[in-house]
C-alpha cells in the first residue's frame, strides 16, 4: 500500500518540556487512522507539526512523495493537508459561504461563481446548505464543527486531519459528523481522526495509534488497542 504521510523521529520541545520525543508514524493513502491518547499526550502538538502550525521541530515529515518539514502551514495546505481545529476557529465576520471561499481563493486561486457552486455542493453534503448565507458567528456548536470540516474540504485536501471534531457534541450529532467523515473517506481522502469519544474512534478507524507522554506506545487495529495493557495503563493508571 502506498504511504501518503511519513513522520520520522519528530522531536518537539517547549523550553525544557519535551512534548514529542522521536515520534515516527506513517499513514497510507485512503486510510482512516485514529489517534488517541490521554490529555497532554501530544496529539495536538503532533498535528500542529504535521499541518505546519509549528515548523521548529527536529526530524522530518514527508507528504505525498516530498519533504515538507520546512514548509509553512499555507504551503502544506496547498500540497493537500487540511485540518479542523479542536476549538472551532471560524472566520466569524464572514458568512459560511465566504468562509469556504477563502480556501477556494488561496488554494485553488479562484473564487468566482463556479467556486460558489462547488462550495454549495460541499455544504449540501454536510447538511449546511440552508446556512450558507448566515454569518458564521450565528452557528450552533455542531454547525461550527461541520463548517470547519467543510472549509477544510474547500482546500481540496488529500489528507484531512480532524482534531476532536466531535468534542462536546450530543450522541446523534456525533453520528452525523462520523457519517460525514466516512463519506469523505469514501471519496478517497485519507483521514486522521483525533478523538476522545472512544466508540467513535473505534467505529471509524482502520488502525489506531496511541500516544502517551509524547511517545507512541502502541498501534494496531481498534480491537487490539482496547485490549492493550499499556493503553489501559495510560488511560486508567496502574
Amino acid at each position, binding site marked *: 500500500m502506498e504511504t501518503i504521510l511519513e513522520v520520522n523521529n519528530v522531536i518537539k520541545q517547549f523550553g525544557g518540556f519535551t512534548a514529542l520525543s522521536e515520534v515516527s508514524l506513517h499513514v497510507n493513502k485512503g486510510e482512516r487512522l485514529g489517534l488517541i491518547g490521554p490529555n497532554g499526550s501530544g496529539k495536538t502538538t503532533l498535528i500542529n507539526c504535521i499541518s505546519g502550525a509549528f515548523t521548529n521541530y527536529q526530524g522530518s515529515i514527508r507528504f505525498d512523495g516530498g519533504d515538507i518539514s520546512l514548509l*509553512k*502551514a499555507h504551503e502544506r495546505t496547498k500540497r493537500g493537508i487540511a*485540518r479542523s481545529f479542536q476549538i472551532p*476557529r*471560524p472566520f*466569524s465576520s464572514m458568512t459560511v459561504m465566504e468562509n469556504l471561499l477563502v*480556501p477556494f481563493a488561496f488554494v485553488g486561486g479562484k473564487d468566482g461563481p463556479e467556486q460558489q457552486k462547488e462550495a454549495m455542493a460541499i455544504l449540501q453534503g454536510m447538511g449546511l446548505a440552508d446556512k450558507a448565507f448566515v454569518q458564521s458567528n450565528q452557528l450552533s456548536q455542531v454547525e461550527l464543527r461541520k463548517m470547519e470540516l467543510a472549509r477544510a474540504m474547500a*482546500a481540496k485536501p488529500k489528507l484531512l486531519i480532524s482534531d476532536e471534531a466531535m468534542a462536546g457534541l450530543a450522541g446523534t450529532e456525533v453520528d452525523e459528523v462520523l457519517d460525514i467523515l466516512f463519506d469523505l473517506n469514501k471519496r478517497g481522502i485519507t483521514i486522521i481522526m483525533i478523538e476522545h469519544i472512544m466508540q467513535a474512534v473505534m467505529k471509524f478507524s482502520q488502525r489506531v495509534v496511541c500516544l502517551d507522554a509524547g511517545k507512541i506506545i502502541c498501534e494496531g487495529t481498534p480491537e487490539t488497542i482496547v485490549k492493550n495493557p499499556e493503553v489501559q495503563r495510560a488511560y486508567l493508571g496502574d
Partner: protein
Amino acid sequence: MKFATYSSLLLLGLLGLSVMGGVNEYVFFAGFVVLQFVVLATAWNILGGYAGYVNFGVPAFIAVGAYTAVVLFKSISAPLLVQILGGGVLAGALGLGVGLLTLKLRGIFFSIATVAVVFILETIVNNWRYVGGATGLQLTRPADLWFFDSYVRMLFFVMAVLAVMSVAIARYVQDSFLGRGLRAVRDSEEAAECSGVPTLKIKLIACTVSGALMGIAGAPMPMYLSYIEPSSTFNLSYSIYALGMPIIGGTSHWIGPVIGAVLLATLQQIVTVTVSNELNVLIVGVLLVLFVVIAPEGILGLIKKWKQSSK
C-alpha cells in the same frame, strides 16, 4: 465604473472650486487637513481595519514622508510631485521593514512595537542638523503654482487627488484576494494559514501599502506649513486620529474611514476656529469612547442596524 465616474466628478468639482475666485483662502487651508485625514484614515484602515493590526506608529510614517520631502527639496529642489513620490516610497519601505520586524507579534505587542518606531525616528531627526534638528527648518515655497492662484489652493487640489487615489487603492484591496485574506487573518490567523492564506506575505503587503499612503499624506506638509519641526510632526495625536476616524466611521468597508475622516476632521476644523484649538483633541477622544462603547462597528454599523430594523 460607478466609483471612477463619481470620483472624477468629485475631483473636477474640487478643481473648479480651487481655481474659482472669491472663495476664502481659509477653506483650502482647512480643506487640506480634512483631505489629509481621509488619506491617513484610509491608509490606517488597510492594516488596522481589514487585518486587525493596530498601528500606533502613524506619525513615524507621516514624518518619513515629510522629512523625505524636505531632504529632496533642500538637496535638489525637487518639485512637489517628486517629493510626494519619494515620501511614499520611503514610508512604504519603512512599512515593509517594520512589518518584517514586528508582524510576527500579535495584538498589543505589535502596537507597542510601532510606537517604539516613532520614538526612534524622532530621536534621529532631533539630532539631524541637515533637516533642522529639534529647532526645525524654515522653507520657502517655490514660485511654481501651475495654474492656481495660491500655493495652498494647489496643495488642496493635490491632496484631493491623493485622497481619491488612496480610497481607490483601499477599495481595490478590499475587493481583491488580498482583502479576503486580510479579513481571514483578522478573524483567525491559524485558520487562515490552514486555508492556504500566506498570512505573513499579505500582512507585509498591507503594511507596506498602508505605510506608503501615510508617507504620501505627510510629504506635502513641509510645503503646506513652510516649516517643519519634529515635535509636531511626530505628534502621537496623529495615531489617535488615524485610528479613531475609521473606528467611528466603520472599519469593515472602505467608505467607513472616509465618512469618519470627513466628519471628524471637518468638525475639528470648525471647533478650532470657533471654540478652541485644544478642544478638538477632546472631541475625537470623547467620540471614540462613545462609539467603542455604543456602536463598535461605527457609523456603518449603525446604518446597517437601522436598515435591518426598518425592513
